[in-house]
């Protein structure tokens, strides 16, 4: 099975020949993966997959250091690129950066806002976090009110 992997600006061509043999950029490695333990040519690493998307790991820890990967199955490359372009368009969605309570709403629907203008203030664990507008535009919708509890990833507002 072949993959293409990007880590920051670095790119890798990878082929998993069998569970015990992997080729990275043409170089073969003996590997032995046992739950959270990985041996690569007998070097021992503690690994963990922290995030996945469609069965493809996106955040890996190696000896507690984090790596953000973009893995693509070589066959499916073309399809993915199209989806990415679609996602980029909807950059006006403001998503909650953490779980917490809305302690203040600083803007209202219909209002015009600048990039980096404060829209809401969130509180969690005795700390306040301001949530900014990602771009200049008009607030189409604010989905929360003061006092609401929100979870990470909840849509808070939409800028158009």
């Amino acid at each position, binding site marked *: *099975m072949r*993959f293409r*992997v990007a*880590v*920051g600006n670095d790119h*890798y061509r*990878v082929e*998993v020949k069998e*569970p015990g043999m*992997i080729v*990275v950029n043409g170089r073969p*490695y003996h*590997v032995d*993966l046992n739950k959270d333990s*990985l041996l*690569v040519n007998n070097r021992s*690493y*503690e*690994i*963990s*997959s*922290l*995030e*996945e*998307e469609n*069965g*493809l*790991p*996106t*955040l*890996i820890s*190696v000896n*507690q*250091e*984090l*790596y*953000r*990967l973009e*893995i693509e*199955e070589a066959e499916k490359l073309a399809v993915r690129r199209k989806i990415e372009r679609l996602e980029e368009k909807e*950059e006006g969605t403001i*998503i*909650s*950066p*953490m*779980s*917490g*309570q809305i302690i203040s709403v600083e803007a209202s629907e219909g209002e015009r806002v600048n990039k*980096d203008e404060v829209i809401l203030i969130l509180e*969690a*664990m*005795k*700390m306040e*976090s301001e*949530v*900014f507008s*990602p771009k200049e535009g008009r607030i189409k919708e604010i989905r929360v009110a003061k006092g609401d509890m929100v*979870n*990470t*990833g909840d849509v808070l507002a939409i800028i158009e």
Partner: protein
Amino acid sequence: MFKKILIANRGEIAVRIIRACRELGIQTVAVYSSVDRASLYVKLAHEAYFLGGPQPKESYLNMRKIIEIAKSSGAQAVHPGYGFLAENPKFVKLCEKNRIKFVGPDSRTMERVGNKLLARKIVEEAGVPIIPGSKEPIKSNKEARDLARRLGLPIIIKAAYGGGGRGLRRVNRLKELPSLLKVARLEARVSFDDPALYIEKYIRNPRHIEVQILADEHNNMIHLGERDCTIQRRYQKLLEETPSPVVDEKLRNRLGEAAVKVAKAVEYTNAGTVEFILDERKNFYFIEINARIQVEHSVTERVTGIDLVKAQIRLATGERLRFRQKDISLDGCAMECRINVEDPLNDFAPSPGTIRNLRFPGGLGVRVDSSIYSGYTIPLYYDTLIAKLTVWGKDREEVIRRMGAALNEFIIEGVKTTVPLHKAILCERDFQRGKISLSFIERHRLLKRLKVNNRASEKIAVITGCLLAYQNRKGTPLKREKKRENLWRRGFAESKWRRGLKKI
């Protein structure tokens, strides 16, 4: 000895107090808010009573309810831990009124040390140096400006009843003064229910040095050496050690004597800490008294061998101190790293969540104090400290190496923590040489180095990712569970990027 003690606190300090009580054969009464039912300290206590909602005002600050539970459960004493009601004179008075022993100084002393301006005055009269500044609360912008001119800029604005960095502002230029006074006053009112402010001269490259003291109710008082708490972020301590790499025997004695003098001046009893600022020329200035057990008490415990929480409880019974100053010797070095659920890469934003995978370090010289366990969900409402890693070594080099090894063994998955930041601190040459000041983290740009995608094991990450992808494609059943949680993390990372912070 008390038969039963109520612990008016939560988290790791509640666990710490329960351990001391278990050794002393004292029954413990825990109190919990609605989000703390599954907390470790509730499990370890003998009895546990529901307090109220998650907001501190509904629960851990609910004095009447706590007193009521103490009385109905038959607790003879209340241990306040740190934070919440630990330094609240009203609560101490309420305990006294209800004939429940408060483990700490009495209400008169608490009032005296709680008012920072009053404490400064008493300390100055006792002949201990204080930072030059105002003797009364600032009444007008003009008064502030005059004082600032006399002291020379920069100056620091502080809340009279403050703590934890709130109400604190540094003023570099005179024209900033009015607006910063306004902000600080607002913060002081919101945080401490009193807008009173005062002004102090700003000390360059200061170190934060504090002295642990123990005092019985029979006028005996000793100090247990200093702690260097200079590694901070946003005025919050992050790493503490004893002895301080810049304090020699002579300075230690002078600091200790000053601390005892301060404590005597306020008629202090029980365990407490006298905080000083040490300038570049090793002049020290009194800042404040912390009238409670401190988070970082563990380092002093290790080098003195004295169980400070047990000592607190014994002193509260009226027992005399078991040691004199000459019995105290300091063995080796100890260092504590505060493990907070905060994301150092994202401006220390709190990172509550569920602990998925947890491994504490162990072995020689390694102590862990924690209230978390695998599967525990850290609530949103309280502070971010979830574990304290205290390490001992014969000398500072051994401590640093051992702490590094211990941090490398530490696994906490499911939340973001300060562990990587601590590793970065330990790796810093200046830290290893003991050359630190309160701005160490900013000055060394440590946060910038905490990058995701360190090149070192990048290829291993690639191999791991592809092997897991391969396994998933070939269909291993194990993976399915993980996906749900991962969405949560994805959202988090994404929002960072959206906020314009660097992409992780």
